[in-house]
């Protein structure tokens, strides 16, 4: 499943990237993140049956000797980093470019999420995913390993972008599941002000939040000519306009909105990366995961 989401050349570039949390210092676990209390804290939680994909070194060989079956020791806190990916799955994410009508924002969001999961998997971090939509939201609890990755990828491929932004109670359900130390990455177009409010609630609660804004090239350039009836996929509103006449005004106001979002994110300490559909995805990933963004 993940192979369709991530193109091979993109997968090759992912090796250069790593996810680092500014709160990872001081944590415990086997993860790649540096820790001062080395080797400690392996609090035994439970045994569980071996599953393909688990690392062989985590097999309890003594138990194997006794029972002739593979068991894996699970510690309570293996990794200091929980990666929560929150994907905007409202109808506005269906937006695609005229030049490339099959590539929707949501498809690109899935690709980016898959890339991030791939990186987290490589680092041994736990990752979780939720889609934000008023219709059939998806919520996958944190997990680790290739199996969990495939599970997430399968669920992602089934989900579609429709409906509006979820109600605040639905937001609360998701928020309650996210641990305090988790790294939250929100992938959205941030057109709905509720998206930023949602993000602000996490940031205010002390979690590390990064934002990845997805834009279509049409929204950046507004290349329409002639008369258009623009329809908002979420609210159903429409505007009948002569596109060239409103272009200048639209670009000014849209740029103003983007600048306002960047300003607000900076004020809250949220790292913001912007990705336009006609750009290569790794650039956005690099910007999102860069140390500068992380250390802010």
């Amino acid at each position, binding site marked *: 499943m993940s192979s369709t989401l991530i193109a091979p050349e993109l997968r090759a570039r992912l090796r250069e990237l790593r996810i680092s949390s500014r709160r990872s210092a001081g944590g415990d676990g086997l993860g790649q993140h540096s820790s001062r209390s080395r080797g400690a804290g392996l609090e035994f939680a439970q045994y569980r049956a071996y599953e393909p994909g688990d690392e062989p070194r985590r097999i309890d060989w003594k138990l194997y000797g006794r029972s002739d079956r593979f068991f894996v020791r699970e510690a309570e806190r293996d990794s200091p980093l929980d990666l929560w990916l929150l994907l905007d799955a409202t109808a506005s994410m269906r937006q695609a470019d005229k030049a490339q009508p099959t590539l929707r924002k949501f498809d690109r969001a899935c690709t980016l999420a898959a890339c991030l999961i791939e990186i987290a998997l490589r680092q041994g971090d736990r990752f979780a995913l939720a889609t934000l939509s008023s219709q059939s939201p998806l919520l996958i609890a944190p997990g680790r390993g290739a199996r969990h990755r495939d599970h997430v990828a399968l669920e992602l491929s089934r989900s579609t972008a429709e409906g509006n932004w979820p109600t605040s109670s639905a937001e609360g359900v998701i928020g309650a599941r996210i641990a305090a130390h988790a790294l939250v990455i929100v992938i959205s177009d941030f057109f709905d002000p509720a998206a930023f409010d949602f993000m602000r609630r996490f940031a205010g609660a002390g979690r590390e939040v990064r934002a990845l804004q997805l834009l279509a090239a049409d929204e950046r350039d507004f290349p329409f000519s002639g008369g258009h009836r623009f329809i908002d996929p979420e609210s159903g509103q429409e*505007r009948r306009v002569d596109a060239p006449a409103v272009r200048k005004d639209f670009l000014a106001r849209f740029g103003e909105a983007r600048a306002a979002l960047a300003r607000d994110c900076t004020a809250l300490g949220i790292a913001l990366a912007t990705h336009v559909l006609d750009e290569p995805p790794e650039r956005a990933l690099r910007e999102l995961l860069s140390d500068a963004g992380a250390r802010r």
Partner: protein
Amino acid sequence: MMLLLAPLGLLALFALVIPFVLHLVRRQQLTDTEFAALRWISLRTQPQRHLRIERPWLLLLRLLLLALLALLLAQPVLESKSVDRDADWVVVAPGADLAAARSRIGGAGEWRWLAPGFPSLDAQLASAPTPTASLLRELDAQLPAGRKLTLVVPEQLDGLDGERVQLAHAFDWIVVPGQSPAVATMPAEKRQLFVRFDADQAAGLDYLRAAVAAWNVRVPACCTLDAQSLATPLPADARWLVWLGADLPADVTAWVEQGGVALVAPQAAKDGDANVLWRDRGGTPLAYEHSRGAGRLISLSGRLDPAQMPLLLDDDFAQRLFDALRGPTPAPTRASAAAVEPLHAAAAAASDVRQVGRALRAFDPWLALLISALLLAERWLATRRRRGART
């Protein structure tokens, strides 16, 4: 120069509004587009109603098409150039002495006959008499304004009518020796009254003899009386006949229909189309007049007998009989040319006349051809552009 026979047809030019409306009001083709960033599209620009004209060339073609159709409805005609020459006209009435005319005018100008169609002097004229007054009016109507006219007429001008001719153009009235060719009429002298009588009506013969004698008193030896029995045939040149007998035989009836005038007494048969010719003092009809082919039949209600026709004893019977046989006198058409010189009419009055008789040439077929060609072009342009828009 173009004229419109039906200028109200130009009201169809109001139809020019239709393509304008079509090209203006036709809603702009709006492309439906899903656009998530709708909230940043300004609301103020929503009522976008540009006065924009789509496909200006097609509109132009359609306007032209409608304008030509309106023109076609207005029935345009071209004023023919055939009458429109620069040279002044010299119009010669037939019978005028040409040599005398040339010596008085000189050779200048365009010389034409005053005859139907106004042929040039080279053309041979039929010897038939021409309606001079009518031709003068026609000439005045056809000739463009401002052209000078020289009219050459013979001293004795025929073909006139009761109305004095009025011409809008400036003209010279030149009288030269000559005489218009005239209708050959029966000479006024040498009339012969043929009487065919039955034996029992011979008494009436005296009254006729007295009447003819009275005619001869007025104009000496102008009339003769030829009284014979009923069986005697009529000579070929006989014009007047008094039939004192029973019904007319077939050959006499045929003679009447070829132009003879017959007085029949008594004749009881009354036709519906008979005019009452004579009445007695009480108003009772005494004589009727019937048309029979080219000739006339005068029927008396009784015999030629003072008891039945008290008229016979009146002193004006001879004159009445003469008038009845001669029939109505034709209006005089001949006059001295100097006396009937046309009047110069005011130009305003003449301008109405000028509109009528002009030589006009319609060009509707060519206009229709042009319109159909334009229609084809319009269809082609309209469908071509539409096809181009789809791809």
